[in-house]
């Protein structure tokens, strides 16, 4: 029920490359899981509110008090391609 086109569309949304030999197995496995998931389609859930947060009913707010930021070397330390002062990426407009 998940076809090849859907798999490729979802992979594009998720920025996942799938090699040609990965597409069909992915479609099959997702279909199997979704087939099970669809058992919740049987339930009568009209008017039932959704639960997004199970216990914390409301957000705690933070006072507007500054804390020290990271030194730039620390911020950039783990970057795969750091320039002198930032994180380098291929230009999105290229």
């Amino acid at each position, binding site marked *: 029920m998940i076809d090849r086109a859907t798999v490729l569309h979802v992979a594009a949304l998720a*920025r*996942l490359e799938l090699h040609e030999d990965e597409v069909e197995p992915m479609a099959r496995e997702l279909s199997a899981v979704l087939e099970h998931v*669809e058992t919740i389609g049987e339930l009568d*859930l009209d008017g039932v509110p959704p*639960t997004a947060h199970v216990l*914390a009913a409301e957000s*705690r707010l933070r006072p507007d008090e500054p804390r020290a930021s990271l030194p730039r070397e620390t911020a950039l330390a783990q970057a795969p391609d750091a320039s002198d002062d930032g994180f380098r990426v291929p230009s999105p407009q290229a």
Partner: protein
Amino acid sequence: MTDPIDLTAVEAAAALRRGDLDARELFAAYRARAAADDTNSFTWLADGAPESVPGAETVLAGLPIAVKDLFCIEGVPTASCSNLLRGYRPPYTATAIERLQGAGATVLGKTNQDEFAMGSSNENSAFGAVRNPWDRTRVPGGSSGGSAAAVAAGLAPAAIGTDTGGSVRQPAALCGVVGLKPTYGTVSRYGMIAFASSLDQAGPIGRTVADTALLLQQMVGAGGQAGSATVDPRDATSIGWQGADALGIPSADRLDGVRIGVPTELLADGVEPGVRAAFDASLRHAEALGATVTEVTLPHARHALAAYYVIAPAEASSNLSRFDGVRYGNRVQAQGDGLVDLYTKTRHDGFGPEVKRRIMLGTFALSSGYYDAYYGRAQQVRTKIVEDYRAAFEDVDLIATPTSPSVAWELGALTDDPVAMYAQDVMTLPVSLAGIPAISIPAGLADGLPVGLQLAGPAFSEPRILDAAHALEQAIGFDGSAPRATVTASGEQAR
């Protein structure tokens, strides 16, 4: 004098505080064992005890602990067992670990896990599968498989794991140790590499119920000057738990007046006979200790699996979007690649198959046109499950089930069948969706492999759960030692 390796965490901490045990020696003894480990439980080991060993004035006084890889520790390799993050060293430490260190614990090493905590067998790890200390051809359970195996194999006195749908309780059950998943929100999630935010919760794994209580006290921030658990200002979902004061080291040996419910729906089918027998035996122990055992109904529990495998992947698909090869992690890029190539190649090569499957599942469930049918409905089912538990706890104090429908299975047996693998979580998922606490304790053996008993209670009922689990633990009298390797002074292993 007994071998310090044989001391429980509670005993070892007491000996360290008294000065009867030297923290450096204890650390070195465990480090030697961990270095000779053949279960693949660790991804990284500390070189030695820290320069300044915590003093006797602290609660844990230098007790070594093993920490699941996904907890960020400043300067320590933290990859959540993903190739994408292999080699990453965070610039900060998770709150739960900071609190344990503040109470005197020392980090022995990082433990193996399923990649990004996605799995029930610890086979989805970029660092290789973990082997069950009871039978090295079998899985330890997951996703905190390394933490459970390390404790079971005597490689660490205690360990910290995380539980999203059973990831502390199930490996504890399969490895014959104790695992506790606290009430959602009582332990800060700050610094835990997220899998599914609304479900993830850190929990302790120990040889005894008392050991898990000892660690839980520190993880929630109890026992400090404030007297009750402290909120973490860095986690908006963390809860200031006033009742944490009552969280002592459990000592109950009776269950008089305790009402235990057994949910008929979850025991209907799929439970292995050996598991069922051990479970029934533990219920008879409970009755002998004075508890009453009755049936309860959780009408929507059987839909928990479906709801969970929408909600958790949906949240995960978003949580894992940050792994894009820009600020950290291992980038995959070829000459002339554009931005989109950078993303897709980095994520293709960095993520393992199960992680990709769940990202795909979650992205699909949230995508335009499918949200209401999948994510929206799953959240409604979650509401029904919360209501089911609320109603059940009107009649009983605790709900008992086996932790896992089966004992540890052979490595590789379920890897090609995601649905069968997911079904292993059927007992633990409803509890996770409801956000309530539960413990898994060893209930005995089936075919020579450990069986776990799960006890769940209402939110913030940890003190009651720990007391009941302790009393049952004494009555069951499980011999907690997995067939253990002995390590010679030189670190050579002999069997």
